[in-house]
């Protein structure tokens, strides 16, 4: 009987210990994090990284608004050999990622294969090459019927890279990767807008990037004290921010309505937003973007 009671207490103790384990671990993690900057900030960084929109959205906008493909807007794969630091590699991995999405959306398979190969090489140098199965991707790129699968697999690969980098306490590379991708999408949009100055949709798309820029600058600010390259990039982004300062985004909230059709809740958004942006603002944004990008890709 005594043994049984002892066993009962032991069982309860083990159950309670199991419940507290995560709290104990959290304490240990918290203590560790005081010495590992990247770990300490990873929660907030991860939250913000998650919200940065995919550059693919911009490419779809450009194609659906009838703009033609222009490979001259993109970073040449021939520049790959210039990127000898992880800082440059991560930024240009993002840039080439956006370029790949752009070529995929426009079904430019020859260019797509070149970009895919370049990305694979860069990813190998960053020890994240395992996320790209070149044979599968090359097969998808070469057949336009596989566009949906191609977009899916490349998006999944890039998401997996971001998760992996964060799990390996290399979030700073994830931030650079997303910054490069975003900057390239802004650059392409500005270049397209240059030859379509009256396109309201493009103007609004450029102005709306003010929100993303604020988030990216917030991300970079986490690293500015410990990483000179990221501090320098943040300073350059400050210049870009000044170009966006005159852009005014106004939002009005009104409760939405909905109907359920075939099991899907379809929302009618009664809210609205407007973007006030002048041609002068767009010119300044384009110039600032170009200056930052030129330093990154050269």
């Amino acid at each position, binding site marked *: *009987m005594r043994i*049984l009671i002892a*066993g*009962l207490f032991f*069982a*309860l103790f*083990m*159950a309670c210990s*199991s*419940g507290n384990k995560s709290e104990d671990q959290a304490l240990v993690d918290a203590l560790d994090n005081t010495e590992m900057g990247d770990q300490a900030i990873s929660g907030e960084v991860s*939250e913000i990284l*998650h*919200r*940065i*929109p*995919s550059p*693919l*959205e911009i490419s*779809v*906008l450009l194609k*659906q608004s009838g703009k033609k493909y222009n490979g001259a807007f993109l970073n040449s794969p021939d520049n790959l050999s210039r990127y000898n630091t992880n800082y440059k590699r991560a930024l240009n991995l993002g840039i080439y990622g956006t370029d790949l999405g752009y070529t995929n959306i426009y079904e430019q398979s020859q260019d797509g294969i070149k970009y895919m190969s370049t990305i694979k090489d860069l990813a190998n140098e960053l020890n994240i090459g395992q996320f790209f199965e070149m044979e599968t991707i090359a097969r998808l790129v070469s057949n336009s019927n596989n566009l*949906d699968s191609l*977009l*899916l697999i490349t*998006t*999944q690969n890039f*998401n997996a890279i971001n998760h992996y980098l964060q799990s390996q306490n290399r979030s700073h590379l994830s931030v650079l990767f997303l910054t490069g991708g975003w900057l390239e999408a802004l650059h392409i949009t500005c270049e397209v807008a240059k030859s379509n100055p009256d396109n309201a*949709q493009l103007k*609004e*798309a450029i102005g*709306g990037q003010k*929100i*993303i820029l604020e*988030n990216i600058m917030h991300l970079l600010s986490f690293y500015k004290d410990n990483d000179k390259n990221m501090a320098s990039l943040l300073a350059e982004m400050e210049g870009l921010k000044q170009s966006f300062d005159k852009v005014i*985004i106004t*939002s*009005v*909230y009104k*409760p*939405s309505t*909905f109907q*359920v059709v075939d*099991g*899907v*809740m*379809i*929302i*009618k*958004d*009664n*809210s*609205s*937003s407007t*973007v006030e942006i002048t041609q002068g603002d767009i010119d300044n944004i384009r110039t600032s973007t170009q200056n930052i990008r030129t330093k990154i890709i050269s």
Partner: protein
Amino acid sequence: MKKLFVFVFSVFVLSGFNANAQCNAETLSTQCIPKLASGFNFLKSYKVEKAGKEYVEYSYVFTKGTQYMINICAPGQNSDGIIVTLEDSDRNKVANSKVNEQYISAIAYPCNKTGIYYIRYTFDDEASYCGGSALGFKR
């Protein structure tokens, strides 16, 4: 005496379940991707695991003129018990997937206001919920 045996056995079994219960939120979130409606491009997959939390939340910048779809996948036939709420940057409610005591498993949102949006998953009772979700877009 028998009752004590049963109690001790139950404690062991239950604590074992608690420690070993596996939530395949990762798998469920991946399974959710092909369930996005036709025409939607995949953006993100989210793990939705209660794991002692009151809610799970993610955020994403939505763009005016783009339509987004958020769906929920759970181990059973439907997403009963998991509710997705969409809020704008000022935390104004845009959508909630529980309607008339029914749990809708997909939300289509044609965005008319660019900004940060919060996608929050809550759980309707104390049960242990495990699921996945996917976000897609189309223009």
